[in-house]
């Protein structure tokens, strides 16, 4: 394993920022530390960087214990949330800073900076100052600067937080492609699910200083292991107190009184449909609709429950007040600690349903 944290703890006053954090990261992977604010994700990043030091536990980079090694000598590149570009230096001098520290020759520096400017698509802007650049351009300079010292690990703290929504999507894509091309082991912190899921190879979900789950986005999305992850990922309707037994195809699972149902798990059919008759279907009433660009989110009332369903507008028209058939294909049942994926019993035996 390339980066390894082993039982790391860190306390700030009364606030337990890291609570027995252990995980391992493979070389060359792009990892997202995802969690709500205050969940300790930034602290983990800063401890790997050496900007913060753990109270106890071990951190390894490339098999080497780095506990006692200062930030200067850890061989990391760090991209700060606020970019932290030196405002009084040109773009060129910002990128060259680390190489000057290393006493590289002028020619080496000049070549490397030009190469990096090309990599980040800012050729010819070396003489500008940071305040003459747009937010996205500054972000790219910060990225180039972090790469200039050829670090073993690239660490990024909420790299897109300060950027406009429209530019952010482009930058995410660009960052993913560039890191893939360079093959550098990278970890970034984010509180934005969409961002984490779209960019990262693997997610590390944090909550209250603990690591909740580690895995690929698809894995975490499909099989949340803890109550927190089941509720945090996606936008779910939460049912309490074994209410999910009311849904056709689901039976009580002991010690898992709550359930999270995502809109994508709910399929809607018109009342007059002839193609599919299934005992999984329930008849509900649409009490609200919300257009969401490519689909409509329906709120369906059924037996004192309100279930949300994601409905493709191409399929058929539904309006508020309509009655529809709906079925729930799966849900996550959980107690305060663990989560279990329940597949609809009726649909399980249906060979037409296919799950990855």
């Amino acid at each position, binding site marked *: 394993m390339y980066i390894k944290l082993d039982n790391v703890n860190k306390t700030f006053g009364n606030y337990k920022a890291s609570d027995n954090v252990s995980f391992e990261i493979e070389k060359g992977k792009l990892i997202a530390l995802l969690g709500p604010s205050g969940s300790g994700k930034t602290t983990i990043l800063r401890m790997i*960087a050496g*900007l913060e030091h753990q109270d106890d536990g071990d951190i390894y980079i490339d098999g080497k214990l780095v506990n006692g090694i*200062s*930030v*200067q*000598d850890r061989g*990391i*590149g*760090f991209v*700060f*949330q*606020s970019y*932290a*570009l*030196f*405002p*009084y230096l040109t773009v060129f001098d910002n990128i060259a*800073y*680390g190489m000057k*520290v*290393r006493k590289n020759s002028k020619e080496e520096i000049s070549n490397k900076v030009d190469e990096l400017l090309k990599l980040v698509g800012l050729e010819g802007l070396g003489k500008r*100052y940071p305040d003459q650049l747009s937010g996205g351009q500054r972000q790219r300079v910060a990225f180039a*600067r*972090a790469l*200039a*010292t050829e670090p073993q690990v690239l660490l990024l703290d909420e790299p897109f937080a300060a950027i406009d929504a429209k530019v952010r999507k482009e930058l995410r894509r660009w960052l993913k492609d560039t890191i893939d091309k360079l093959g550098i082991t990278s970890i970034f912190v984010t509180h934005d699910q969409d961002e984490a899921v779209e960019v990262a190879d693997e997610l590390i979900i944090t909550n209250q200083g603990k690591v909740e789950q580690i895995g690929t986005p698809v894995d975490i999305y499909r099989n949340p292991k803890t109550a927190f992850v089941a509720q945090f990922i996606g936008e779910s309707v939460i049912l309490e107190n074994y209410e999910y037994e009311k849904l056709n195809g689901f039976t009580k699972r002991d010690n898992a009184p709550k359930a999270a149902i995502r809109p994508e798990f709910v399929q809607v059919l018109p009342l007059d449909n002839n193609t599919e008759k299934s005992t999984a279907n329930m008849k509900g009433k649409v009490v609200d609709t919300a257009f969401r660009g490519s689909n409509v989110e329906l709120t369906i009332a059924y037996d004192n429950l309100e279930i949300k369903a994601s409905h493709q507008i191409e399929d058929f028209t539904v309006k508020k007040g309509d009655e529809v058939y709906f079925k729930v294909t799966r849900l996550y049942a959980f107690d305060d600690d663990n989560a279990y994926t329940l597949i609809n019993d009726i649909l399980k035996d249906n060979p037409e349903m296919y799950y990855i």
Partner: protein
Amino acid sequence: MEKSNSIINRILKSGLITWVLLLFIWGVGALFYTDDFLPNPLVTLDGAKTLITSGTLWTDIVVSMGRVLKGWSLGLLFAIPVGLCVGNFKVISYVFEPFLNFFRFVPAIGFITLFLLWFGVGETSKVALIFYAVIFPVMVNTIAGVRSVDYSLVEAAESMGASKRRTFFTVVVPSAVPNIFTGARLGLSGAIICIVAAEMLAASEGLGYLIYTSRLYYRTDWIFAGIFTLGLIGFLADKLLRFLGKKFLYRFGVR
């Protein structure tokens, strides 16, 4: 229509009206008093002419400004490094700051008798006084500048391998420049206040001396000329300093 409006606007904004109005009020006011009490603008201009042609005014300006520049430069040379150290090193700050936070409330002019006693009535005591007047605003602002450095810049430098020492010179000092500059401006204005008072109390030339002694000769017009000169010098010195700051320190955030 548009054009005449813009001319009126430009005249309004130029401040011409203000000065015409001021001269008018002054002129009318002067009608009711003697020249010894309130000389009218023409008499004052005449008095100023005398001062200029005799060379007295010029000598006084040169002497006063010479003292200010000497004391101010020495003050900056001392206060900026000290401020940087106090701001950066905790141990130094513990020892130095209580001292600083007390003595910055002692007006420089309070030290004049002591300095006359210690350094004599010559130039040294005046330069020492200005030095004292300058160092406190400069130190206080420099310390504030060092402490307000964006800490992520320091972390960025360190993450690229820069030592504490290198970080201090390449990040902390450049970041403190705008505050240091503000301190220097405040110090200059304090220095001018201080030299005027000092020259009134113990000097044989300089603008303060001019203003103070003119009263003994009943030359109220010279007092006016002296006050006007003081204002002009302060105004121009500040303008020049800001111009230079903007030109050479723009990149460090001096605006």
